[in-house]
């Protein structure tokens, strides 16, 4: 499969390159893969990009950590407490319905131009994805398994540790794939809208001088990072969910 996947990418890039060479695609608007690759190489080699990349990654990692922790915690508490869940339900819906981009200027005012305004934006995205999945995961635990554990003498804490968390883990993991991508998107959007560091800043600078090659190079670097992090999550997931039948995992790729 991997061979075919790479082949498809190569065909698309070649078509793009050929189109640009033949003059079908205007280089000013579309750049060309050769130039983009050269630019990426140059950015990496001169070291100009590392500082920006590490800022973006730091922001994404922080918003991911905070968002996942808060999402899992809230998901657990609300799934175990019917009253709280019903009380907060409309507010959670309202909060989740807000387009995150409109929050960016407010976070800029609150947290300044540094990394924390981007982290805040990232958290608002990650939190809801993880929260909804954890909530669902804890709720959908097979009641027979819960009864069995209770008959075997499980206390409430043991029930959470041995039954609820492992059972919710499948759901939490499917949300991790999505939320890592979204965390990076959110912080880049945050950087794009106002900052002095980060890949989003680089892209907005390049765009400001109509440097399409620079914009594409920024996107290419982001794509590489997302793929790499995704592969790491995959490995972690395969280890933690090793008890699952293998065929059950095939639907996951479609979601991510």
């Amino acid at each position, binding site marked *: 499969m991997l061979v075919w996947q790479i082949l498809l990418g190569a065909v698309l890039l070649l078509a793009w390159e050929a189109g640009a060479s033949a003059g079908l695609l205007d280089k000013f608007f579309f750049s060309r893969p050769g130039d983009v690759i050269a630019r990426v190489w140059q950015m990496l080699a001169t070291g100009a990009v590392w500082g920006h990349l590490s800022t973006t990654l730091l922001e994404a990692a922080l918003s991911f950590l905070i968002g996942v922790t808060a999402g899992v915690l809230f998901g657990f508490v609300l799934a175990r407490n019917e009253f709280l869940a019903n009380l907060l339900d409309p507010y959670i819906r309202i909060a989740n319905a807000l387009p995150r981009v409109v929050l960016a200027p407010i976070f800029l005012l609150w947290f300044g131009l540094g990394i924390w305004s981007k982290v805040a934006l990232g958290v608002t995205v990650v939190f809801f994805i993880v929260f909804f999945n954890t909530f669902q995961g804890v709720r959908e635990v*097979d009641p*027979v*398994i819960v*009864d*069995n*554990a*209770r*008959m*075997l*003498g*499980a*206390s409430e804490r*043991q029930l959470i540790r*041995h*039954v609820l968390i*492992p*059972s919710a*883990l499948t759901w939490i993991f499917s949300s991790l794939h999505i939320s890592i991508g979204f965390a990076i998107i959110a912080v880049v959007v945050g950087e794009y809208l106002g900052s002095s560091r980060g890949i989003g800043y680089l892209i907005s600078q390049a765009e400001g001088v109509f440097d399409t090659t620079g914009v594409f190079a920024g996107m290419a670097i982001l794509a590489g990072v997302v793929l790499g992090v995704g592969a790491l999550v995959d490995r972690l997931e395969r280890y933690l*969910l*090793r*008890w*699952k*039948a293998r065929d059950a995992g095939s639907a996951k790729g479609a979601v991510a």
Partner: protein
Amino acid sequence: MTTSSHATAVRFTGVARSFRGYTAVRGVSLEVKSGSFLSVVGPSGCGKSTLLNIAAGLTKPTEGAVEIFGQPLNGINRKAAYMFQQDALLPWKTVLGNITLGLEFRAADPRQAVQSAQTWIHRVGLDGFRDHYPHQLSGGMRKRVAMAQTWIVDPAIVLMDEPFSALDVHTRLLMEGEILALWAESTKTVMFVTHDLEEAIALSDEVVVLSAGPASHVVGVYKVGLKRPRNLIDIKTDPLFVDIYRSIWRDLREEVLKSYDRGEKA
């Protein structure tokens, strides 16, 4: 356990249970003698499982009382283990992890728990499957794990809700034999729910017939005077077995027909 010396393991007194206006059982009074093997039979949907869940403490009766070895039951029945009809193993734990679960919850010494689990794995014939996950096992093997999982905590009472209904006939016969052997070498009390009258007679000391639901109640309690140990393969042609079967079936038949009628109308 000092309370185990009490002559009655489980006593239902005027027990009723309703679920949102639907009355599953009503006016059930029943005694399960300590150390005996008792089966509850009845048409499907007659509240057999409800009775078992009440004995387990998973469901509270809306009326009446339940006593376990003379003590009123509050919350989960700590003297009982439960074998469910459905798969209830933790899919994320290996055979070993599932079998030691009850001991782990009781904060037993981990090394002893593993040792004890090893003997159980051997006893239920799962040598070599210690580190397998449930999805890698057949239905019969999963039932064996469930059997070890419930018996390892050495409960005074074992509750079983049609534990073998999903198995094929031969595996089922095998498992019934194993349950009987386990029970015979212990002093445990078994309350066994099934809709299969033959299975109930072959295994039990006493068979309780419930009426068709809703609001089902005890129609009759029958002693099974077949001597032990029993040979489950030949027992069904034993003249005494046939006699007992006939006399219980006379009552059960009516209830099954009633439940069939209600099903037709519904």
